[in-house]
């Protein structure tokens, strides 16, 4: 029998606010345990939550960027369960009436049609703290609770079960990742857990319209692991059914070392979270004006920008894709185009020299020592014939190292291109005289010797001779 996998993703997006969702404590990562806490995020008796407006703004941005409707009156709910890293004994989340509902993202796999993936909802919630085990200050071989992360703002983005393969899941996930980082609402760091994913996976016989029992695979913290975990889970379920077994509804944990999932808790052990509206928080009312203001403030999104690069700037699809991989890169490129004018020339340099140098040195585009304006100036020097494309690469390396403007480097190092035909003729004459044999060969019909002469002239001119002038003069002279 053939099986059809059905996958839905729940993605937790940690928001880049300066302070926590329900108190004023900082959200900075990696501080001394419990140093970023107050009565509210410690869950002390009598403490009350106050909603951080920035979190709402970020949630609206995320919703609008994923084609969701913004709920005019959304509600916070308590999700009740006991765990030492959950100080109040409940998590403040949203259950009925989340802030964003009914959105979608379009994905497209290589060689396939565009496919629309539904987004059921996006809701706001607080993160829990974390447990640390082992030798702790004042506690030998014990367990401690660090509540620095408690109350950190999260968005949970829940997809419809519209995904049919691990590749579709990864494609959807990458697009969502690109959007939240593009919006600047999440740093996207999957290793540190700023963007983490749970996958609901089931399989059903091809042609069936009854969904199979699903397993939820928890906390898969890289795109590679998502693919591995889903593929393992699909195969595990198929093997189980083929062997006459049945899939049970359960929560499973992915072990990246083994590349396998293992059972964490069964449906029977599942919590009854006893959700109910949090009486400490009033309903969140978002009027049309707020939504429209947010819509106006939205940046151009990656997909729109990619399309514009193709239609307005005439870039090939590949270039447009590469140059919208992240917002900073696309903005660098656009600044370069604005200063220079030739989009394709700027694209070639950004995708070539710039990207190579960034990668070699491990530098982020935001910290690129060659600014878009300096890059444009360099390209203008080529356009104006001041330097050749080849010399430009030398100048670029120097710009990267020293941060100097290209015209300064060209002047300091005497790299101005020689286009004066008299001077070039003199060089050519000298070279022809010294290589009479090759001249004969050329004239005898061996035209590929031409390249040898170009090389010699460029070498003699230290690369500064204008290649176009050299070509023309050489042709004239070699023909005799």
């Amino acid at each position, binding site marked *: 029998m053939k099986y059809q996998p059905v996958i839905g993703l729940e993605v937790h997006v940690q928001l880049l606010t300066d302070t926590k969702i329900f108190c004023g404590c900082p959200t900075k990562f990696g501080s001394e345990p419990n140093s970023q806490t107050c009565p509210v995020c410690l869950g002390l008796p009598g403490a009350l939550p106050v909603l951080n407006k920035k979190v709402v703004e970020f949630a609206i941005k995320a919703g609008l960027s994923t084609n969701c409707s913004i709920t005019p009156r959304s509600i916070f709910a308590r999700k*009740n369960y006991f765990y030492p890293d959950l100080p*109040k004994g409940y998590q403040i989340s949203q259950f009925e009436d989340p802030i964003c509902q009914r959105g979608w993202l379009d994905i497209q796999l290589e060689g396939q049609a565009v496919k629309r993936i539904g987004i059921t909802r996006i809701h706001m919630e607080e993160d829990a703290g974390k447990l640390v085990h082992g030798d702790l200050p004042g506690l030998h071989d014990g367990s401690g609770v660090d509540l620095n992360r408690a109350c950190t703002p999260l968005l949970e983005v829940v997809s419809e079960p519209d995904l049919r393969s691990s590749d579709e899941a990864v494609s959807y996930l990458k697009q969502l990742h690109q959007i939240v980082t593009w919006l600047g609402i999440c740093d996207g760091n999957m290793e540190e857990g700023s963007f983490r994913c749970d996958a609901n996976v089931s399989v059903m016989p091809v042609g069936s319209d009854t969904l199979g029992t699903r397993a939820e695979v928890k906390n898969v913290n890289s795109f590679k692991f998502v693919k591995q975990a889903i593929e393992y889970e699909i195969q595990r379920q198929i093997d189980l059914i083929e062997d006459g077994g049945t899939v049970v509804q359960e929560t499973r944990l992915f072990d990246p070392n083994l590349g396998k999932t293992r059972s964490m808790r069964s449906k029977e052990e599942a919590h009854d979270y006893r959700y109910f509206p949090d*009486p*400490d928080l009033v309903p969140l009312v978002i009027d049309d004006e707020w939504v429209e203001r947010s819509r106006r403030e939205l940046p151009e999104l990656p997909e729109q920008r990619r399309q514009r690069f193709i239609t307005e700037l005439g870039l090939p699809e590949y270039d447009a894709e590469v140059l919208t991989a992240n917002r900073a890169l696309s903005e660098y490129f656009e600044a370069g185009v604005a200063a220079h004018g030739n989009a394709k020339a700027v694209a070639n340099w950004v995708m070539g020299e710039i990207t190579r140098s960034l990668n070699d040195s491990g530098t982020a585009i935001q910290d690129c020592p060659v600014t878009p304006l300096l890059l444009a100036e360099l390209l203008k020097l080529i356009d104006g014939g001041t330097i050749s494309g080849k010399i430009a690469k030398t100048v670029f390396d120097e710009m990267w190292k020293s941060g100097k403007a290209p015209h300064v480097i060209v002047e300091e190092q005497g790299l101005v291109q020689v286009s004066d035909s008299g001077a070039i003729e003199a060089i050519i004459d000298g070279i022809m005289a010294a290589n009479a044999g090759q001249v004969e060969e050329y004239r005898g019909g061996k035209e590929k010797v031409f390249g040898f002469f170009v090389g010699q002239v460029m070498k003699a001119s230290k690369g500064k001779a204008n290649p176009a002038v050299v070509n023309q003069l050489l042709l004239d002279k070699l023909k005799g």
Partner: protein
Amino acid sequence: MDTIDMTIHGLHQALESKQLSSVEATKAMLARIEAVEPQVGSFITVTPEQALAGAEAADRRIAAGDMDILTGVPLALKDIFLTEGIRTTCGSRILDNFIPPYSATSWEKLRDRGAVLLGKLNQDEFAMGSSNESSAFGVCRNPWDTTRIPGGSSGGSAAAIAARQATATLGTDTGGSIRQPASHCGCVGLKPTYGRVSRYGVIAYASSLDQVGPLTRDVTDCAIMLGALAGYDPKDSTSVDLAVPDYVATLPNGVKGLRIGLPREYFIAGLDADVQKAMDAAIETYRRLGAEFVDISLPHTDYAVATYYLIATAEASSNLARYEGVRFGHRSANAEGLIDMMTKSRSEGFGAEVKRRIMLGTYALSSGYYDAYYVKAQKVRTLIMNDFIKAFADVDVMLTPVAPTPAFKIGEKVNDPLQMYLSDIFTIPVNLAGTCAMSLPAGFSTDGLPIGVQLIGRPFGEEAILRAGYAFEQATEWHRASANL
């Protein structure tokens, strides 16, 4: 007049005219506490050092001419208010070692005006009770008859006024916990409108019903205290950003033409004869003062107690989840492993009534029962609110009994929770509706027990009930009576 008998405004005059210093007044109170505490049991913790330090600071302020009406006034707080550096138990064993690192907004407001803290008052555990008998810190007795309960849950707050151990006190009211003990102990007790006073730093029982309020010797003091407590607190999202009127200034405006509603559902068969008598007398007094009476109906009154015991317990089951021994409070010494530690800490730390309500609330919120209980209760709550909105279209305030009987005997209802719950039938609807109400001394039973009547106001209509209460007080002597202790 004896210092311990003074009202806030009376003491203020004495302090202002330098007849008395705050240190003297505070010492008199501390001496009184020491003298009668073995008979009453109003306090869980007395804080003489903080009290004297506060009184000295108040005297310096007074000498410097920086005096507020509350400067130098010795107060005590129900042990549900967090007080930085001072043990706060909420009447529970589970918090018997809890020293809070911060203070409740309401106490900060009083402290900043120069009020002096005498200590923390006895109460039902986590404010769950109507007799103060669920306290883990001993019996609190009614100063008018020490074989009887003072009421609850703010039993200590009312008993301390009646026993003249504090000039005024703070309580909290979730279903009647200020008004019922005030009625039983012969003092004035006000439950403000939900959102009028910050709940920040007040240990939560049922968050959508809890409200902070004062217990005082007279209505003027009540107006003074409310003026100091009321106002928006950015730390409490449910507090309301609404200007605070000068409650004292409008007190003398009288009740001529005031339309007072008498909800017929509150005059039930089986109402204690003495309570009925006090009600009749109060109606007569108001009629004489020029008020008009209107017969009104609050048709969903019968469902109020059941509704309350679903909503309050549901919220409590969640609010009390944080007491599990991980970060503060009681941790079981004989537990193995995490689940065992949490379970045993809670089993050992909570008393029977608290456990009963946690279980009721957990049940009401459980999957499969949520719609039938919690959701339905919320719908009925809306109907009850609408009853009040409709009735207030015709009247300015309502007049009702506070409790169906005067204070009952200690132990009398302790094994019959349902009977105990029914002692709040006249106060609970006000919390469900979210509006304000005040208990006012209005007579005595044939046994000499105080009886209060309740004035219910529109949401944020505290001015009207204070004004009506003041007019009643001017026309009667009930508030001047004092327990023979």
